[in-house]
């Protein structure tokens, strides 16, 4: 049996010796592949804004961090991610705070009536976090939402990085990702859209004056909002929930639902009824450059 234990120990040792270099190479490869490096920037504390924007594409596209910075004279950075939900926004906030960023204000955009719905188009964007799993604060969030065990990943890099394996190999073949509408970020983390989408007036078909219903709300999404509020309260961060303008008005009563959940613990900045012409919109749900600039002015006034 002694021989058995000895050989197992040798195998584990050899595995441990090659584990780190392979894990490191995968991690480096997949990070170099990303065009959008915002998570790395916050983890390494290369940015430390006073105003931090979190949310989905409405944050990424509608809130022009550079314009807000100019108008408020406070450093502002956008950490919005297209197609993400409240669970993901909470993770981004936690990663930022664990990276010792010290924002005094957090702007969280609200996706209108879809925010709490289980069939929301927004998801937990694990794919945006995975390339940065070498950072412990990111890996913890990944483990909370995927089938990975945190302490096992702390011990074994290959296990921790195995989701990135093929992405890292792809970097060798294709190099860095080309920027697209969701990742072509500017110096302040925003992706400001220009002109008008070919899908203008096509997407967002569920527009109209419909009463908001609590049916289909997912508890975990409400819990995430609750946690964002609690974190901000605990750290004395001023949280503002931002309703960006929409081209056509959506569910009636959703604002009241937000008031009911927030219970005055956060400021609500509602621009959904801001009368902007069609030329300010990229599509039904998102502003273009002109719209984002106009919103930044309005937002700065309220901030």
């Amino acid at each position: 049996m002694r021989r058995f234990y000895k050989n197992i120990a040798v195998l584990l040792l050899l595995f441990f010796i090659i584990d780190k270099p392979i894990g490191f190479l995968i991690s480096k490869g997949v990070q170099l592949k990303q065009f959008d490096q915002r998570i790395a920037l916050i983890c390494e504390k290369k940015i430390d804004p006073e105003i931090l924007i979190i949310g989905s594409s409405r944050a990424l596209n509608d809130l022009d961090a550079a314009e807000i910075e100019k108008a408020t004279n406070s450093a502002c950075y956008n950490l919005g991610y297209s197609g993400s939900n409240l669970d993901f926004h909470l993770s981004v906030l936690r990663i930022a705070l664990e990276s010792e960023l010290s924002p005094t204000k957090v702007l969280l955009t609200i996706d209108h009536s879809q925010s709490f719905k289980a069939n929301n188009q927004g998801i937990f964007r694990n794919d945006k976090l995975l390339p940065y799993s070498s950072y412990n604060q990111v890996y913890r969030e990944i483990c909370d939402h995927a089938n990975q065990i945190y302490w096992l990943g702390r011990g074994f890099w290959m296990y921790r990085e195995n989701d990135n394996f093929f992405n890292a190999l792809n970097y060798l073949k294709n190099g860095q990702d080309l920027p697209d509408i969701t990742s072509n970020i500017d110096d302040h983390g925003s992706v400001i859209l220009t002109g008008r989408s070919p899908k203008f007036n096509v997407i967002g078909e569920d527009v109209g004056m419909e009463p908001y219903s609590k049916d289909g709300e997912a508890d975990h999404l409400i819990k995430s909002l609750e946690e964002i509020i609690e974190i901000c309260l605990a750290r004395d961060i001023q949280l503002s929930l931002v309703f960006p303008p929409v081209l056509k008005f959506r569910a009636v009563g959703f604002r009241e639902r937000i008031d009911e959940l927030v219970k005055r613990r956060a400021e609500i900045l509602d621009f959904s009824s801001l009368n902007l012409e069609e030329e300010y919109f990229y599509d039904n749900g998102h502003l273009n450059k002109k719209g984002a600039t106009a919103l930044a002015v309005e937002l700065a006034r309220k901030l």
Partner: protein
Amino acid sequence: MVFNSTAFLFFFPVVVFLYFLLPGRYRWILLLISSYFFYMYWKAVYILLIVLSTLVDYFAGLKMAAISEKKKRRPYLALSILSNLGILFTFKYFNFFAESVNAMLEFFRVAYVMPAVHLLLPIGISFYTFQTMSYSIDVYKGKIKAEKSLGIFALYVTYFPQLVAGPIERSSNLIPQLRGDYPFDYKRVTDGMKLMAWGFFKKVVIADQIAPMVDYLWSDPENFGGFSIVFACYLFAYQVYCDFSGYSDIAIGASKILGIDLMTNFRRPYLAQSLSELWSRWHLSLTTWFRDYLFLPLVRNKNIKWPWQYNVAVIYVLSGVWHGADWTFILWGVITSIIIIASRMMPKTKAFIHRLSGLQRFPRLDRIVQIIITFNIFSILGIYFRSDNLGVSNTLWSRLFTSWIADVQEIITNSESLRGHILYLGYDLIQFSSTIFMIILLEVIQVREERKGDIIDQLNARSTFFRWTVYLSISVLIVLYSFDRSVPFIYFQF
């Protein structure tokens, strides 16, 4: 609990450690507790079905053993078989039966709807019910003595390495081993670990990588032409083989570590030269079950005067039904049996075609051609095996002979997105190449094993440097490929 889970990663070493720590006479208690824990980790309440099956078969066995006249044992055999088949029918086949009855009633315009039952299919139900039935039949026939210890019998029913997906063990092989006192044997334990690693490699590095490609085609069958369908059928053949034989290897390896030998379940089926030979190499514990408890009794029964073709058809149709409650599985069994019966009935025609091809002058090429033909037939029949319903399989059959030239043209002309759709089946070049490379590697190893014997024995004969390089490479590949896919073992659904 499943083998490819982190829970098993901790569960198994703890069981092995305690197993060798305990004196031999207490080990079966540890294995019994571990086996119940293993099953209850998935859904605790379904252990009641196993307990029921255990108690019924245990008492039926004891009663039968106490009766010397075979005829008088029959009621207890019937009790055992009916209770096992009853569990199986209720949980696995009732809804299919109800749907079929409802369709028939609708056809005859009868206004009655048989209600469906909403029950989760207990994993491994087809395996452990068949295992316990074989025990009762063997006791009835007087082939084995009834097990007197309820604990040992309960362990025979639930022995965790083979509980949820086999091999379906015979009591004559497993029960005597459960009482054994096996000292720690370095070679046996390390050979078991190597077999487990090989099983994990097949499951994680091959089967789980193929799964998204196969799902890609089957989720939208109308969007593909013949080339992609045939290619996906080949891939599915490898997926199901690596998935199931991988599970069997892990089960056999885990049991070997504990000193208990389980039966071989696969013998390189894709190197078979005919469909019937393939089935004599595939899922041996089930095929021999059907042979011993159904086919041979049918052949030997003087009251049944069917031609042999009926017996073959019964076996393959029942084998199809065993795999799943759907018309697709029944049709799969019918077509398989037709091919096997036709092949056996026309030896002269086969020999004539063989002569005509001129292949007998090139025996090696002849063997390869036979292997390729057999693999193609088996893979294409996978259309029924993989499709959720007849609608999907009909769509695939109707598209099987379409757009071959256009598909091949798209692959050759450097159109990356269409190539990704038609050939890579949703993957990119790197993932596609790595999957194909692993399949080729598997085949090279299997051919070597076919020629020179057990691959682990071959590995043991190599230099220390070579062996350790293999151990490390396999470990690294398993860890790197075991990312978050959560692909369950295919045979769990059976």
